[in-house]
């Protein structure tokens, strides 16, 4: 990446702000907020992908699934962990598609 970006914010700058603040906050926060923050980071990366025309239906579905389920962390730990497994499975399936290409 060039140093001469005309003072424009690099596309991941906001993400760095979020991730660094999360890193610091998680030192003192409940254990399950760690996974929650990682999922939220994924959502934000998908937003960057959308803005830069790198996304597709799979990532939109992924983001929708995260949005719909992430708050179960607040009141239903079992369901939250189940949902984490579902996300991993979804990505593993996609990975297999890449391998089979």
């Amino acid at each position, binding site marked *: 990446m060039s140093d001469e970006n005309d003072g424009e914010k690099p596309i991941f700058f906001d993400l760095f*702000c*979020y991730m*660094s*603040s*999360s890193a610091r*906050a998680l030192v003192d*926060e409940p254990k399950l*907020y760690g996974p929650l923050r990682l999922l939220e980071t994924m959502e934000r990366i998908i937003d960057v992908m959308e803005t830069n025309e790198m996304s597709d239906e799979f990532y939109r579905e992924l983001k929708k699934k995260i949005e719909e389920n992430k*708050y179960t962390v607040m009141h239903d730990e079992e369901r939250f962990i189940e949902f984490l497994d579902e996300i991993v499975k979804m990505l593993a399936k996609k990975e297999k598609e890449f391998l089979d290409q």
Partner: protein
Amino acid sequence: MVDGDLLKVIKERRSIRDYKDEEISKESIKTLLESARWAPSGSNIQAWRIYVVKGDKLESIKKFSPGLLSDPPIIFVMCADIEEAENKGGKLSKDVLTKMDIAIAAQNICLQASSIGLGTCYIGSFNKKAIREILELPDHHVPELILTVGRPKKIPDPPKRKNLDELTRWVE
């Protein structure tokens, strides 16, 4: 006020994480701030300072507040004036009581908001140093809590509550 009205408001308040893209009137904001003004505080020190933030500064604060996930039109950054707290109330006030006082004032805001159809959410996960930088806070104003405020898109179902027996011990 009819008996039971306040309990109804208390039970109907929710933590809102999805807001409409709608400005909140200055009159409504002022009633929320007025409700905070009337909160009790240790030795009546009233060491809370409320920063009402919207626009670009709000967007910047969001980047350093992992707990602030929604798009509220406005936030209240509730700070402790630790200088006033310590001068008038000593170390106990500065370290403990003022935090409690801020939480009480915040709850007044949340209940008043709920009673006029607005939503709120307590945000405890934010980077104090970043917020101080963005808002150019004086050294003696310490951000303790953020409240998001806006018109809710939807009202979530209430989370499960422990029953009274679990919470209470009767002592005679």
